[in-house]
């Protein structure tokens, strides 16, 4: 504004008013736009860097090397004494890895009596083959005694070597695959019996110490249960609390105090809720450890303030004229709220809820204390059974020593990002489509 002041004593005539500082103000506006663009560019750069590092590391996790084997379900190996009619457990505990080993040895033309070579052959196939072949037999016991083509999972080391994640240039003794195994791998690849197939196991398997049979299945179910509990508990409680505070409660010191506390709770670090959950739900109420019900309750506590704040602002955004009109034609206060205000505020409430859920979905810290950062291989049948959550699975895999877990960590991050993106896009679409503005 200094340029508007004309120094005293100059004989210059005053410039026309509309020219004053115009150039400078335009320049300032231009500069501000540039700052804004730079700020966004920095943000986008980091986002791109994050996505690049996750996707470049993780896309390979969606493929898994498998070997096509003509497995002879030899009765003399599976059930030598022919007692499966009386003792079905025999099919459960049979030596399935031997079947796969023998099939691969036969394919590669190796003498099954050569123990050293058979050891190397055995290490090319995942130990998960036991469960895989067992499932084939359990599903259809009549395959015993026949030969079936089965795509069995290759071991994690072969998988990593095939994907080029193990440096094959360095000495044989410093890597986990031998030259012989690499040669066999190439041989199988040429005959078309070894290829990368879509890794559906990544979505269906539970936790495993072997990378090739590790998946986020249990974590997905655990996260689903928790989200369900959060939704079912925090939506009605949060909406009821907000309606009361916004529409019915008198504005006095008490409601002010409650409001300050709710806003405070929204900013409390999530680990605090974990401590609370441990003390109240596990130690006092004696709910089981590691169960998704406890996780869901803890995340409910964490999400409630977010939902209450979003709901209150959605209720406030409904113009007072609508309330007055409803009351004016004789509606009770409750009818006014439930027939007019709440339906109009619903899109805002749902958006807030979805954002709260997305936040809860990505939370690990509170789950640590209630025992959900755990190795869980069995699917939980109910929310009372032990389970993990998606972000927990990522955290657990990030600490693993095996090379093949590196890509799986990023693969799991991609899955989590996918779910978050779906939730947030739904929130945006809801807002665009249904929200009414006045």
């Amino acid at each position, binding site marked *: 504004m200094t340029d508007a002041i004309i120094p005293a004593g100059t004989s210059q005539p005053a410039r026309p008013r509309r020219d004053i500082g115009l150039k400078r103000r335009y320049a300032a506006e231009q500069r501000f736009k540039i700052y804004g663009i730079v700020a966004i560019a920095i943000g986008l750069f980091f986002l791109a860097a994050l996505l690049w590092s996750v996707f470049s590391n993780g896309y390979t996790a969606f493929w898994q090397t498998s070997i096509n084997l003509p497995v002879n379900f030899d009765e003399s190996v599976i059930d030598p004494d022919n007692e499966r009619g009386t003792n079905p*457990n025999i099919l*459960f*505990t049979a030596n399935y890895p031997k079947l796969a080993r023998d099939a691969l040895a036969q394919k590669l033309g190796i003498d099954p009596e050569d123990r050293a070579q058979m050891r190397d052959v055995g290490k090319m196939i995942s*130990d998960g083959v*036991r*469960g895989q072949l067992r499932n084939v037999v359990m599903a259809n016991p009549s395959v015993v005694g026949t030969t079936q083509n089965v795509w069995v999972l290759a071991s994690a080391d072969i998988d990593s070597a095939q994907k080029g994640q*193990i*440096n094959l240039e*360095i000495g044989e003794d*410093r*890597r*986990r695959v031998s030259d012989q195994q690499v040669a066999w791998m190439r041989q199988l690849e040429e005959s078309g019996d070894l290829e990368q197939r879509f890794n559906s196991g990544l979505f269906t398997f*539970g*936790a*495993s*110490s*072997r990378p090739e049979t590790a998946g986020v299945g249990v974590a997905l179910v655990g996260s689903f249960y928790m989200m369900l*509990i959060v*939704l*079912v*508990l925090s*939506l*009605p409680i949060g*909406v009821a609390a907000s309606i009361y505070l916004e529409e019915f409660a008198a504005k006095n010191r008490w409601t002010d105090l409650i409001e300050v506390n709710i806003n405070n709770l929204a900013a409390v670090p999530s680990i605090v809720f974990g401590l609370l959950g441990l003390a109240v739900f*596990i*130690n006092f*109420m*004696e*709910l*089981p*450890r*590691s169960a998704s*019900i406890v996780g869901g309750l803890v995340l409910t506590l964490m999400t409630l303030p977010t939902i209450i704040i979003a709901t209150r602002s959605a209720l406030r955004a409904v113009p007072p004229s609508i309330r007055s009109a409803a009351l004016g034609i004789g509606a009770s206060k409750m009818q006014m709220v*439930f027939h007019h205000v*709440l*339906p109009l505020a*619903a899109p805002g409430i749902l958006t807030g809820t979805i954002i709260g859920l997305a936040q809860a979905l990505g939370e690990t810290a509170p789950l*640590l204390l209630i*025992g959900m*950062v*755990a*190795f*869980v*291989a*069995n699917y939980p049948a*109910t*929310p*009372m*059974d*032990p389970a993990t959550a998606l972000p927990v699975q990522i955290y*657990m895999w*990030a*600490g*693993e*020593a*095996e*090379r093949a877990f590196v890509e799986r960590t990023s693969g799991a991050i991609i899955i989590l990002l996918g779910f978050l993106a779906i939730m947030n896009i739904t929130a945006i679409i809801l807002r665009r489509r249904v929200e009414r503005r006045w």
Partner: protein
Amino acid sequence: MKTLLLTASAAAIAVAMSAGIAAARDQIQIAGSSTVLPYAKIVAENFGETYPDFKTPVVESGGSSAGLKEFCKGVGEDTIDIANASRKIKESELKACADNGVTEVQEVQFGYDGIVFATDAAGPDWELTPVDVYKALAAKVVVDGKLVDNPYKKWNEVNSALPDWDIVAYIPGEKHGTREVFEEKLLIAGCEEAGGPEAAAEAGLDEDAAASACKAVRKDGGAVDIDGDYTETLARIDSNKTGVGVFGLSFYENNADKLKVATVSGVTPSVETISSGEYPVSRPLQFYVKKAHIGVIPGLKEYVTFFLDDQMVGPDGPLAEYGLVPAPDEERDAQREAFEAGETM
């Protein structure tokens, strides 16, 4: 909206109700050391696959201390059955256990873990001794018989056989069980060899103060505490090619193409040299079993027996394959017998 609210509240009540009826636990619950975690996972997984009648145990991570704390909370279905630990249980912890009614604790030592130094795979060969480690990483070192602040900036100042690299070592943080072994087997051993206790006595320190002076790590950036796991140490070495990292043997063996391991006192760490006791830096791994839960939690006894079976913990088993140093034959037999006999601490 009304129906939505009604269903929601009905479902909420249903969830709250189901919480009231806690079903009997049919799954073993384990918590504790992150060093023992990979081994416990392998056993748990194989256990679930071998015994059709039992579910796969749940193994929590979180550290030895946190695991033992949960373990000592009491007896009953809502407490864990086994605590994994990369160190021995302390007297104070046993007392806390007893105060809460956990009077019978069975200790099972199932093998050893080696602690190794490793550098980037492209670097030169390293031959370390405890004295080198002490001189390079301690806060105060002995120079001319006196304790002074650590003056060394490069490894070759410590020992001319070492490369001309700035001293930057990534060592386990204080909450790790590995740290204790690192202090005891390297810093204190090196300190004694370098004449630290005498120099400390000369400076007028009593024995306790001398010991803590020996194991105090320099804080000027030469030694970096890593509170995360070994993947973090590996990432640090990836970005700083002249850094030296401390790893568990199993982690090194899984990443031997990226790392070069240093010899300590002339011995290359391996399963053989550690089980024979030649390689100096190792520690026992163990877990603690709540005896009161045996026979109550289905599969608990079978799990421990399966863990101690040679097909798991033996020299050709999957644990040794992953990097566990198996205990000698007699020791494994003794552990099995002690568990069968139900010996408690």
